[in-house]
């Protein structure tokens, strides 16, 4: 394991644990007295796991030679601790649920504008399991059981968000995958393509195809942000190449997503660089993992192509991710890097020219005196009004924010990894992550307000 991969994994594990701790802390604020003892119990369990992990992290960080990391196998044991946490999480179901952040709705409305205006109602449900899921149409399901229901109720979609990711907009991208499932079901995308050609020896194949459909829709709408999120999740999986009955193997899905990004062909250099870095990390992570025969029985390229064609028919051009231009993309990531929200944007060249004009006008005002000044005042006012008119910030878009957010998080991660880290820095990483979450949410919060007020 290279030092870079080990450090990245360590940072991701620490982040996951810190999120769990924060989740328990948040729950403690809303749970009743009768639930308090149980909460204490969970806190203690987590504390024990946490202490053990900090000890392991300390050991890794104190190694003089990064090559020793592999020998100690400490990183793998860290990852297995995440699996232990995943066992604890469902048991917290007894605690009261929190409310999702309002920004998550802003994100969904903006990412799926046409769908959501077409009699679809989406509810985001927080749930304890570290998983994302969808109830594609509650009304339809009830209609089967209650025949007196109205003929054409609105489509009620419930998407489930892992509660510990409540405040992490970077992980909300998985809701796009779940929305993809709802769209697949409504438009019958998956069913229309695979049934006759399904390899008979793998009964899971049809289910896998629907997952690929949802993945394709998500990446079409969100672009690289979905890829980054997916690879981060894969990195933390204790067995990323294992056989799933419900989903194709993670590495196969990543292969398809990468192909899809290449086909979209609109990516800027910095984005490409980050995509390649994530891909390399995943490849390194899975290179020694056992692969299953299903990987070779299925003609995956053929499956990917069929899914792509089917999705092309249904996902309208207007829905698709459009790479923001390089200057804007770099400017947004740079602002996030300085800890500034990015709900709006003003081109830096335009800003520069406004600054020049403002400076010139200030100079002219200072230099012009007496009668001449009185004469020139209307002209000065006109110039001021022109400058104000030019200073026209435009609202950004949640998809742009998430893409810039992932690049910024990657830069921070590299920075964190490249420094000589001591255990004292572990908390600093978590503080940095929390601040990043807050800035991303703040960026999304102002967009609908900005858009509405611009219309005036």
């Amino acid at each position, binding site marked *: 394991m290279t030092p870079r991969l080990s450090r990245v994994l360590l940072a991701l594990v620490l982040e996951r644990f810190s999120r769990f701790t924060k989740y328990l*802390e948040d729950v403690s604020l809303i749970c009743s007295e009768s639930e308090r003892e149980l909460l204490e119990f969970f806190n203690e369990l987590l504390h024990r796991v946490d202490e053990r992990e900090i000890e392991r992290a300390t050991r890794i960080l104190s190694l003089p030679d990064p090559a020793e990391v592999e020998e100690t196998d400490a990183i793998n044991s860290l990852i297995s601790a995440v699996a232990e946490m995943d066992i604890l999480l469902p048991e917290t179901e007894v605690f009261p649920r929190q409310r999702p952040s309002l920004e998550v709705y802003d994100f969904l409305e903006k990412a799926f504008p046409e769908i959501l205006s077409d009699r679809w109602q989406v509810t985001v449900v927080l749930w304890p399991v570290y998983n994302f899921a969808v109830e594609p149409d509650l009304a339809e399901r009830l209609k089967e059981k209650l025949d007196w229901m109205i003929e054409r109720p609105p489509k009620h979609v419930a998407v489930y968000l892992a509660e510990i990711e409540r405040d992490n907009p970077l992980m909300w991208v998985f809701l796009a995958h779940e929305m993809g499932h709802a769209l697949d079901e409504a438009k019958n995308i998956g069913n229309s393509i695979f049934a006759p050609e399904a390899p008979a020896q793998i009964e899971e194949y049809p289910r896998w195809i629907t997952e690929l459909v949802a993945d394709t829709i998500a990446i079409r709408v969100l672009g690289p942000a979905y890829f980054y999120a997916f690879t981060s999740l894969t990195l933390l999986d204790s067995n990323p190449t294992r056989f799933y009955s419900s989903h194709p193997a993670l590495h196969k899905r990543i292969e398809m997503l990468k192909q899809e990004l290449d086909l979209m062909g609109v990516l800027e250099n910095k984005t490409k660089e980050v995509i390649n870095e994530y891909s390399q990390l995943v490849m390194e992570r899975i290179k020694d993992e056992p692969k299953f025969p299903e990987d070779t029985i299925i003609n995956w390229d053929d499956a990917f192509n069929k899914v792509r064609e089917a999705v092309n028919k249904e996902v309208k051009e207007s829905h698709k991710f459009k790479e923001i231009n390089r200057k804007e993309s770099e400017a947004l990531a740079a602002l996030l890097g300085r800890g500034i929200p990015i709900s709006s944007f003003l081109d830096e060249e335009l800003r*520069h020219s406004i600054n020049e004009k403002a400076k010139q*006008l200030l100079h002219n005002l200072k230099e012009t005196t007496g009668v001449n000044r009185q004469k020139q005042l209307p002209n000065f006012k006109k110039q001021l009004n022109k400058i104000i008119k030019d*200073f026209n910030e435009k609202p950004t878009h949640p998809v742009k924010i998430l893409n810039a957010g992932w690049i910024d998080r990657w830069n921070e991660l590299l920075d964190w990894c490249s420094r000589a880290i001591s255990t004292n820095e572990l908390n600093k990483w978590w503080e940095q992550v929390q601040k990043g979450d807050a800035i991303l949410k703040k960026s999304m919060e102002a967009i609908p307000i900005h858009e509405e007020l611009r219309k*005036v």
Partner: protein
Amino acid sequence: MILNELQIIERLSRPDETRISIEPLINLGGQLGPSSIDVRLGTEFKVIRRQQYTHLDPSEKEPRQIELDVKKYTEEVLVRFHPQYGGFVLHPGEFALGSTLEYICLPNDLAGRLEGRSSWSRIGLQCHVTGGFIDPGFHGTITFELCNLGTVPIRLYVGLRVAQIAFYEVSESLKPYPEKMYTKYFGQAGTGASRFYKDYEFDVLRKLCRRAKRGGAL
């Protein structure tokens, strides 16, 4: 010196770290005054649940515990931008925390002062309770200490321009806000509750209290 409108624009458009950042700046023309810029109401409000509160005394507990207590006794009200969500109603005599929609970054050579807008003051809305000074180098949302001093309830909507900020030029601070020994609100991106319990004087008071409980000399 207080910056005038043109100086404010010049600062907003600077390319370097001496820029004033106001994010988002939705409508400069509609927000810019002769020597100030209007700021809007954000989406998050905080009110204290008095029913469970006896008093706040940071000398009795550790800061972390006080922080959790404050969180527990604080009700968070989130409001979206649309009349259908009802806004936030501030009743006469009631106190609540809110924040600017804008995230503001001041350079090291500018201080800011938050002031109410006359139109709102005339119906009794106070937007800060003496805590309106913004240090050079501050980054974050500005917290409104909202109080309705009038006699009728006021319904507040997200995005309303309830206050304004004036900017003062100062000689460049060598110890701007982020470098102060104890910064409590740097980088806040929402309505931040008070962290008065983090003042170092309380460390001393806590030590003295503990000593007194053990029967030591004061």
